[in-house]
């Protein structure tokens, strides 16, 4: 039996909502299921706003959360009510049966459950108090209840609770007790809905990571030497995780005074041959614009992770958006070509992170890896490769005998990448500069030299489009001619794939092409895909249609845009409506 169940837990931060979701997803992953999970936080500093932890648990690969949840847990009536509607027919709504406060008419969850939904009133508060003497462990009660109700094994939960509260003394104990209390109640409850967990199948040897954690792991596995950063939502947790891990490996991380310093130190370290990186969000990337240009001109490797959030300006720091594509690709003065990668899922974050170091070193240039809040914070079960799939050193060494008077740091070569001498190497002394220069690195402003060096800086990146062991773009779905082709990037690809499956069910010939390498752009491949499509749809989480714009610029051909800036992930249903509309036109044309 295939399992495909989505659970939402709704409450305030103070109620341990996010913690409950975290234990649940880890326990289910531990049990061998595939999980994809994304939480919504309050924006305010003080943590009393609404939180929703959502996870989809499957045996087959899933690509995004579902429109409808199968199970909703309300830790709090006020926050729960608006979410009752997201539960599908015959899905379960679990809620506090005995509210502490007297709630006015209509303020209780029970009053909002549709007839087709299955209500599970639960004395959450009471169970917690009875088990632990306090109401604090209500989140554990509901966890236990879910486990009991759906006949899930206790052991994975117990393991996670143990790890999570190790050394926290009574808290750990209380949590176990509350969990048990909930479990018993759940197991004893008659299950009316048609939510059924099948066995996890052969079981996955997977780890549960969010995008930022995957990036950190990619950095570590690629042998990162130095990290420099300045805190900014939603990128901060990359630095926070590396701050824990890098010293264990003898590596150095420094919190700098700002983003300009962060990219400057990163490039300084890169100049010495170290693998170095920084992480930021849109505002920080804006500040880095000038220094990134130096990295391009001086041909110094560096890696910049950018997790996008709502913009422009300070925008909406705690909501997701895909509106930094323009600045990532075009945000520098002069002809400043750079490599821009945008992973589309958590595993991709890991791969892009590691590959970014390879590419930075191989092509001697800054590499920007574009994430967004949705991807940074979304959890997925990822099967890790046995051995890190990253080359430890991609530097082009100076041929023997070349060091000395004749060494040309910026010499023209067949692949337009010049051998790099690192500080400390005898005979390799040279100066790198942001001024236009000749092969030796000496200032040179001759027209021919500027044209030749401009060409070198652009042409060397062409090879990145063939960088080994990397998915630059990929086509999914129907082969050959299709009614509607979807061109997608970044965190939105998952929803597009779900749309494609839906389209197939409705008899619409549909294919998706995801583009991971956004610069240099795989123009030929994209144009070939477009050739196959009666209509091309480009759904993005930005207002302007930045990717659509890029495609038109690169191919000189028109596309259809679909743009939302709600701060939340795309809704599969919304994209599907566009596909239906376009498919109709396509059919009409064909007819």
């Amino acid at each position, binding site marked *: 039996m295939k399992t495909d169940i989505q659970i939402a837990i709704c409450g305030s931060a103070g109620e341990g909502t996010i913690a409950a979701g975290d234990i649940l997803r880890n326990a289910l992953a531990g049990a061998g299921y595939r999980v994809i999970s994304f939480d919504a936080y309050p924006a305010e500093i003080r943590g009393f706003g609404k939180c929703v932890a959502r996870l989809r648990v499957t045996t087959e690969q899933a690509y995004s959360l579902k429109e409808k949840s199968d199970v909703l847990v309300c830790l709090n009536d006020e926050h729960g009510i608006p979410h009752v509607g997201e539960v599908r027919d015959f899905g379960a709504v679990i809620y506090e049966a005995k509210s502490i406060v007297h709630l006015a008419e209509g303020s209780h969850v029970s009053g909002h459950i549709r007839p087709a939904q299955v209500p599970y009133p639960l004395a959450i508060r009471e169970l917690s108090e009875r088990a632990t003497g306090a109401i604090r462990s209500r989140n554990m009660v509901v966890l236990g209840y879910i486990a009991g109700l759906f006949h899930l094994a206790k052991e994975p939960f117990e393991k996670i609770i143990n790890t999570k509260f190790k050394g926290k003394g009574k808290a750990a104990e209380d949590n176990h007790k509350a969990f048990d209390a909930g479990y018993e109640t759940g197991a004893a409850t008659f299950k009316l809905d048609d939510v059924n967990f099948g066995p996890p199948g052969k079981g996955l040897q997977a780890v549960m990571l969010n995008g930022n954690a995957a990036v950190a792991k990619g950095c570590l596995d690629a042998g990162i030497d130095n990290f420099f950063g300045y805190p900014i939502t939603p990128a901060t947790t990359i630095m926070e995780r590396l701050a824990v891990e890098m010293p264990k490996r003898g590596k150095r991380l420094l919190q700098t005074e700002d983003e300009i310093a962060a990219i400057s130190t990163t490039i300084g370290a890169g100049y010495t041959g*170290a693998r170095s990186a920084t992480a930021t969000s849109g505002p920080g990337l804006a500040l880095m614009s000038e220094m990134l240009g130096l990295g391009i001109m001086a041909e110094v490797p560096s890696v910049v992770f950018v997790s996008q959030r709502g913009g422009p300006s300070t925008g909406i720091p705690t909501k997701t958006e895909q509106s930094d594509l323009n600045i990532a690709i075009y945000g520098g003065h002069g002809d400043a070509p750079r490599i821009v990668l945008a992973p589309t899922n958590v595993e991709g974050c890991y791969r892009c992170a590691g590959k970014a170091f390879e590419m930075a070193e191989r092509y001697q240039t800054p590499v920007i890896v574009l994430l967004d809040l949705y991807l940074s914070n979304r959890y997925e079960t990822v099967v890790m490769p046995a051995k890190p799939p990253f080359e430890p050193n991609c530097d082009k060494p100076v041929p023997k005998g070349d060091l000395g008077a004749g060494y040309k740091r910026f010499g023209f070569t067949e692949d337009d990448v010049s051998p790099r001498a690192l500080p400390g190497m005898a005979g390799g002394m040279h100066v790198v500069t942001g001024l236009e220069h000749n092969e030796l690195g000496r200032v040179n402003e001759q027209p021919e030299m500027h044209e030749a060096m401009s060409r070198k800086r652009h042409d060397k990146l062409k090879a990145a489009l063939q960088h080994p062991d990397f998915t630059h773009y990929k086509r999914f779905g129907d082969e050959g001619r299709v009614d509607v082709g979807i061109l997608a990037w970044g965190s939105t690809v998952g929803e597009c794939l779900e749309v494609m499956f839906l389209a197939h069910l409705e008899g619409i010939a549909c294919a998706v092409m995801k583009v991971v390498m956004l610069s240099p752009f795989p123009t030929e491949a994209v144009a070939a895909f477009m050739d196959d499509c009666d209509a091309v749809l480009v759904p993005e989480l930005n207002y302007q249609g930045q990717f659509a714009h890029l495609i038109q610029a690169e191919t000189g051909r028109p596309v259809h845009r679909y743009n939302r800036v709600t701060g939340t992930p795309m809704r599969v249903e919304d994209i599907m409506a566009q596909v239906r509309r376009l498919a109709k036109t396509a059919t009409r044309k064909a007819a």
Partner: protein
Amino acid sequence: MTPQPIYLEEKLKEVQESGRLAYRSKSMPTWCPGCGYFSIVDGLPGALNDLGIAPKDAVVVSGIGCSSRFPFFVNTYGFHTLHGRVLPVATGIKTANDALTVIAVGGDGDGFAIGGGHVPHAARRNVDLTYLLFDNGIYGLTKGQTSPTSSVGFKTPTSPYENPDQPLNPLLMVLTYGATWVGQAYAGRPQQLETMIKQAIAHRGFSYLHILSPCVTFDKTDRTYVRLGDLVRDLPANHDKGDLGAALHLAMDTATPALGVFYETQRPTLADALDGLVEKAGGSVGQKRRTA
């Protein structure tokens, strides 16, 4: 009307014999004849040579300005960065490779206008590098505008009526930032300058050398050799360079700038501190870096 030869034959011979030639680049400085910066480019090779630092182990990092053309004129590794960014780039280099001797150079505008936000942090972290600040009280490269150390009343193309702003006092500022070695030299006294460059490089930690240097092209009235020559004086003989209060006091006198080491102390460098974290985390310190 071709450029005048800056280096006399004799000079070249002297340099050659001293073993310092290895540190001089084949590119001749493009500075105006008479610019104070020549003394500095003469002084650095001597200092490096005396300290036994091979050209391959030194990295000279600069910002943008006449002063920042410096790396092109010495034969070490060099990084000519962006206006104002010399210190963070230098910090990155040193953090990635302890074995390198890192010398940061730049002008008054580079360091205390656009780059002013970085100085406090390099100083407080005690990054083990030397910062040579070329103070000519002007923006030389962009043809003579007002700088943050220009005197009040000084006329330039951006302050044609007069400079209205009180100048900054970099020496005083750097002392309060936590620099562990602070000194002042004058381009008109090249011998002393060279000695101080050597001391600054020898210091373990963040050393700041403020170098007064006339811009002969765009300042004909204020900080000329003649006027500066009259004003500068040696440090009082009894100055205690371990006394921060005394150093602050000395630095407050900008009317008659004192030359010498204002302040010197020892505390852990940034690298020491970061190694401390590695130890706390149970990692192994001092692992060989990937780089040469």
